[in-house]
């Protein structure tokens, strides 16, 4: 120790040179794999600011591209919205002529999952909205992709939602393409079964199922699942239809409770959309 401090004091340049030479020789004699790994680690550490700067500019470019695409989508959606509002007015007029109930649009109450059930066959979640927020038992609950379940129990500030993969939940569904109606029930894992479909019914693999709205239990038109497999029953009277849910029922975080329908007022809807656009600008 004393020799080292003596060397550094008396001959600092020569000592540092000797250290540098020894360090270089040690590095040269290191094993190939160790050298490669050390070099990669040091390079990534030294190049971190460069990489950060590069990724910043890459992300800016990507955002620009995304913005351009979204603008295009916004323009086409605006046109489509205009067209649909005209169709909707026409449809409402015709429904009025035929004496049908006026269409309504849904109001969604956003909520967060705060607890999950641990029962393997009776899946349910608890959300942070309850009677105080206007939640009632039986209301439909949807996620970003489609129907998730319905409200079973309501407390002042929370509610328990029975999920689709709860053995006690049956959902009347409609094949979006062929309009065939069946009853959906959970089977196992991510698989569901669509019952009461006759062997002659037009149901195909890949068809989307939506809620039928029959019985007024759940509102009509929410996507529920996709048909995975269709096969004939042994009796050949009905079909065995396997369905996968639209929503990932095991990873739910944010949900929307359908708190009710309101008379469709296109003016109000357009005003709302206009307000959103103004805020974005």
């Amino acid at each position, binding site marked *: 120790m004393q020799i080292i401090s003596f060397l550094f004091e008396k001959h600092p*340049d*020569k000592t540092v*040179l000797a250290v*540098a*030479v020894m360090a*270089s*020789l040690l*590095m040269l004699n290191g094993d190939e794999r160790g050298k490669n790994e050390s*070099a990669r680690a040091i390079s990534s550490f030294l190049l971190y600011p460069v990489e950060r700067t590069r990724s910043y500019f890459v992300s800016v470019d990507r955002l620009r591209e995304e913005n351009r695409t979204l603008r295009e989508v916004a323009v086409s959606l605006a046109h489509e919205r205009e067209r649909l509002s005209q169709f909707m007015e026409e449809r409402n007029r015709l429904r009025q002529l035929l004496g049908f109930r006026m269409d309504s649009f849904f109001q969604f109450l956003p909520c967060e999952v705060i607890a999950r059930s641990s029962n393997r066959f009776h899946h349910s979640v608890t959300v942070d909205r309850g009677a105080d927020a206007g939640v009632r038992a039986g209301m439909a609950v949807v996620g970003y992709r489609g129907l998730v379940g319905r409200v079973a129990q309501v407390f002042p500030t929370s509610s328990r939602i029975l999920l689709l993969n709860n053995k006690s939940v049956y959902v009347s569904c409609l094949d979006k393409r062929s309009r065939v109606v069946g009853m959906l029930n959970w089977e196992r894992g991510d698989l569901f079964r669509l019952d009461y479909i006759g062997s002659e019914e037009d149901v195909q693999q890949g068809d989307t199922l939506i809620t039928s709205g029959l019985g007024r239990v759940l509102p009509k038109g929410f996507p529920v699942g996709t048909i995975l497999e269709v096969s004939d029953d042994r009796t050949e009277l009905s079909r065995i239809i396997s369905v996968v849910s639209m929503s990932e029922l095991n990873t739910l975080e944010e949900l929307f409770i359908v708190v009710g329908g309101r008379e469709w007022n296109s003016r109000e809807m357009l005003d709302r959309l206009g307000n959103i656009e103004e805020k974005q600008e």
Partner: protein
Amino acid sequence: MYLFRMIAAAVIVFIMQTTFVHRINILGAAPDLVLVLLAVLVLDRKPLLAVIIGFSLGFLQDLGNASYLGMNALAKSLLGYGISRFASGYFPDSALFRGLLLFLAALASDIIALNITASFNPGDVLLSFFRYSLLSAVYTAVAGILVFGVLGLLPGRVVRPRGGY
């Protein structure tokens, strides 16, 4: 400020060495801009600092080719020490002598590198030395003279009386 300028210069030189230099090779010989940078940085500096700068530059250069990790660190440490210890006192302050200094430094650097890469095989070392090293050393010397010249033209005292950046 000196440290900042040194880092900035090192970044620029490394970018040029890795992206640009191979495009201007003549008969397979390319200038060693890192060596030029080393000469610019350590001329008229204390040997201790010169060794540290040489080792750091060489080590950074080695990171590009991990198979010979330590080779450039060794060569540049020795050259940094040599330039600082001997060249500063004995070489006159002129472009021609700076060129000569860089020529000799490039030859010394190549001799170390060739011996390590050719596992001290004299035949291979001599062959590569006469095939590439002489021309590369000339090229490095010319590049060095240009760099010193450009630095001398810059406003303020970018170049110290005897060269050091």
